C-alpha cells in the first residue's frame, strides 16, 4: 500500500533534524573551516586555500594508513562474511539451544570496545595470557607487541571474535524467513546441499548480507578503540589505521589544518562507498517487494 503524501509530517521530523544538525553539521562546518586555514595560535587564522589538501595527497603517512585500512577491511570482510554464514547455516532452528546460541553469540557484540581490547591484551600477552603462554609452550614465537605480523594477526582475530556474530545473527534472521515449503520442494527434487544453499538460501539472504557487509565495512573502516587499546597502533606504525592516525594528528599534535583536511577526505571516502552499498540495498529491497 502506497503511503499518502503529507507535508505536515515535516513537523514530526523537525526535532530530529535540529538535534542531528547541532551535533553533525555545526561541528562539520568548523572542520571545513580549519581545512582551509592555518594558525600561529591565539585564534589568529589566515586563508591557505587548498594547501593542506595538496600536502596530504602527497604525504606518505596518509597513503600508508589508507593502505593498511583497506587491507584490514578487506581481510576481515573476507573472513567474517563466509564464517558468519557458515555458523548461521549450522545453528539450531528452534528450541532451547537456539536461544542459548543467540545469547552467547550476542555477548561479544555488547562488550565495550575498549574492554574488547583489554580482553585480548590479557588473553594474548606472553607473560600472563592464555594464548601467549600456549603459543610459547608450543614453541611458536608469538609476541603481538613486538612482531608486526603477530600484531596484525591478533588485531584481525580480535575483530573476527568481536563481529562475526553480527554476520551470523543477520544471516540467521534471513534464513528464518525462508518458508518450510521451499525445503520440502528441494527434498522432493533431491537437490544437493550446495544447490539448496546456492539457489534458495543465498538469494534469500541477499538483503541481510548487504546490510552485514555495509555495517562491517563502515565499522571496520572507522575502527579506533580496539587496536588502540591492544597495540596502540604499533609496533611502530603497522597497526595505525586511519582513525588512530587522525586522532594522533588532531588531539595529539593539534595540527588543526591537516587534521581537518584529513577528516573531510576520510568522511567522503566512507560516504561514497556507503552510498553505493545503500543504493544496491534499496534496489534489492524493491525487487524483493515486487516478488
Amino acid at each position: 500500500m502506497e503511503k499518502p503524501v503529507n507535508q505536515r509530517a515535516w513537523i514530526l521530523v523537525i526535532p530530529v533534524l535540529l538535534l542531528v544538525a547541532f551535533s553533525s553539521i555545526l561541528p562539520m562546518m568548523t572542520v571545513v573551516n580549519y581545512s582551509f586555514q592555518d594558525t600561529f595560535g591565539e585564534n589568529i587564522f589566515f586563508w591557505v586555500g587548498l594547501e593542506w589538501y595538496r600536502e596530504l595527497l602527497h604525504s606518505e603517512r596518509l597513503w600508508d594508513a589508507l593502505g593498511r585500512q583497506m587491507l584490514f577491511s578487506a581481510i576481515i570482510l573476507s573472513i567474517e562474511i563466509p564464517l558468519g554464514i557458515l555458523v548461521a547455516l549450522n545453528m539450531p532452528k528452534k528450541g532451547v539451544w537456539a536461544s542459548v546460541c543467540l545469547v552467547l553469540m550476542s555477548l561479544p557484540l555488547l562488550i565495550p570496545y575498549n574492554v574488547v581490547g583489554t580482553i585480548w591484551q590479557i588473553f594474548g600477552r606472553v607473560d600472563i595470557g592464555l594464548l601467549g603462554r600456549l603459543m610459547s609452550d608450543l614453541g611458536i614465537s608469538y609476541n603481538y607487541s613486538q612482531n608486526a605480523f603477530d600484531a596484525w594477526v591478533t588485531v584481525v582475530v580480535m575483530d573476527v571474535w568481536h563481529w562475526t556474530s553480527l554476520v551470523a545473527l543477520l544471516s540467521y534472521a534471513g534464513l528464518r524467513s525462508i518458508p518450510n515449503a521451499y525445503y520440502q520442494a528441494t527434498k522432493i527434487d533431491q537437490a544437493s546441499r550446495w544447490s539448496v544453499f546456492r539457489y534458495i538460501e543465498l538469494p534469500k539472504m541477499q538483503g541481510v548480507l548487504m546490510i552485514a557487509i555495509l555495517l562491517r565495512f563502515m565499522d571496520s573502516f572507522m575502527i579506533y578503540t580496539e587496536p588502540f587499546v591492544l597495540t596502540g597502533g604499533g609496533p611502530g606504525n603497522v597497526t595505525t589505521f586511519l582513525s588512530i592516525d587522525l586522532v594522533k594528528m588532531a588531539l595529539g599534535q593539534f595540527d588543526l589544518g591537516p587534521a581537518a583536511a584529513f577528516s573531510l577526505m576520510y568522511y567522503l571516502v566512507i560516504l561514497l562507498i556507503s552510498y553505493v552499498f545503500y543504493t544496491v540495498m534499496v534496489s534489492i529491497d524493491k525487487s524483493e517487494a515486487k516478488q
Partner: protein
Amino acid sequence: MSADQPVNQTTRIRSKPRIKSSAIIVTLYLIFLLVPIYWLVNMSFKSNAEILNTFTLFPDDFTLDNYRTILTDPSWYMGYINSLTYVLLNTVISLAVALPAAYAFSRYRFFGDNHLFFWLLTNRMAPPAVFALPFFQLYSSVSLFDTHIAVALAHCLFNVPLAVWILEGFMRGVPREIDETAFIDGFGFTHFFTKIFIPMIAPGIGVTAFFCFMFSWVELLLSRTLTSVDAKPITAIMTRTVSASGLDWGVLAAAGVLTIIPGAIVIYFVRNHIAKGFALGRV
C-alpha cells in the same frame, strides 16, 4: 514393521553425520567466543601476585579483592555512575526525538523524505574520530565540557539515526488501518500517539532503548575526549590504568567484567530482536 526397519536405519545413518557436523561447527565457534571471556573472568578473581608469578587455569587463591577495590574506591565506581548517567540521558533524548520522526517516515511521504532518511544514516557512518576535535571545541565554547549532558548530546550523533531507523522498522509492521480508524473515531493525534500507538509498539521501543543504551555504553573515543574529571566514564578510566605503569591486571579485569554485566543481563530479553537492532531495523 520389519519392512520399515531398514528405511529407518538408512535415514538415521544419513541424517546423523550432518547433525553432528553442524553441532561441532557451532560448538567450536562458541568456544572461540567464550575462551577469551573466561580468561578475563578468571583473572578478575586472582590476586595480582598470582597473575604475574604463576600460571593457573583457575584461581588458586580465589579472591574478591579486585571487585572490592572497584566498589569502594570513588575514582573507580564514580566511572560507572558517570557512564550510566550520560547513557540514560542519551537514551531518553534519542527516543523522545526519534519516536515522532520514525512515525512520520513510516506513515507519510513528504518533500525530501528519502534524502533525509539517508542523511540520517550518514551520521551513523561518520567516524567518531572526525568529530572528536570539533566536539571538544563546540562543547568547550558553550562551557559544557566535562558534563554528562555533553557526552549524551554527542552520542546522539549516531544514536538518534539508529533509533529512527529501528523504530521505523517496527512501525512499518503496524497496519495503517489502525491509525485511520482511530482518527475516524475522533482521536486527536497526540492522544492517539501516546495512548494507542506507543503501547502497540512497546516491544520495539524496548529494543530501541536497549540499542541506544548499548551503543552509548560501548563508545570510548567521544566520551573520553569530552570529559576530564567530573563526568569521566568507566571506559576512559580503564584505559588510563592501562597506560600507567605498574598495571593492576586483576582490578582491570574485574572492571571489564563489570562493564559486560549490563548487556549480559538484558541480552536474553532482546535475543529475538537483536539482529533487527544491529541491522538498523532492516531485517
